[in-house]
């Protein structure tokens, strides 16, 4: 069972989450040319080893998380909220 340490809810089974996708993708602006969008939507590096991905805590706090995980061993190296401001607030709360 992959255990994900949700910053808000704590460590949970991965079955509480829905898998997102490749978190390293930077989506272009809405008016960017077709070519940029094609690359962002359809092409993936598919890394063997440590890589960034998103998970959505659908059965919990509904936060989208950016997780650094190895596709080889499933070990998780870091978990943080995708939303940078949300992340800052959580870090601040934790350091209190």
């Amino acid at each position, binding site marked *: 069972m992959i255990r994900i340490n949700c910053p808000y809810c704590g460590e949970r*089974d991965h079955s509480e989450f829905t898998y997102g996708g490749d978190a390293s993708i930077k989506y272009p602006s809405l008016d960017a040319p077709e070519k940029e969008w094609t690359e962002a939507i359809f092409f993936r590096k598919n890394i063997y080893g440590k890589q960034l991905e998103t998970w959505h805590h659908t059965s919990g706090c509904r936060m989208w998380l950016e997780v650094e995980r190895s*596709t080889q061993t499933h070990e998780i190296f870091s978990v943080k909220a995708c939303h940078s401001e949300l992340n800052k607030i959580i870090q601040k709360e934790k350091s209190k």
Partner: protein
Amino acid sequence: MVDLGSLPIESHKLQAFVTESIKPLLNHVVVYGVGGAHFYISQSNKGSMVFGGDLDWYKSYAQRGNLPIVQDSAEAAMAILPCLGRIRLLRHWAGVMDMSMDGSFFMCKTPISNLYLNAGWNYGGFKASPASGWYFADLIANEQPHKYIQNHNLERFEKGINLDERGAGPDPKLHG
């Protein structure tokens, strides 16, 4: 693109399950996809029930699965064949599935000269292997794709040719 090190393929894992061998119980392959379930089962000639269904849903090369899918597959098995409750699972493992962005394979040349690609079969590779061999050999020998595989190339996305029978969209895990 492949010269930059990316392809429209993600590696996911699919678990397979085998039970103890029993005398003949099921003579066909049963497949169903109802209520969000996705499931196949058949009986091997040795007598084991062989079944499986959904991907584990996260990218992996580890070739071993986790418990939530074991539970889901067992539930799906029981839904279609309630007598399976007392049959025992003997072994489960996982294979690496090359899931593509639209659920269809690639059999084509690539931007790198003399590099041909035959991948992205999702989980249909087993059944397709023999036939795909012929078409791939033909492509390599004749440098031109056969008409059946004409659209099965890396350029189809920019061309808007979506070979997405399921209509799930550009997310590999949804084509499981």
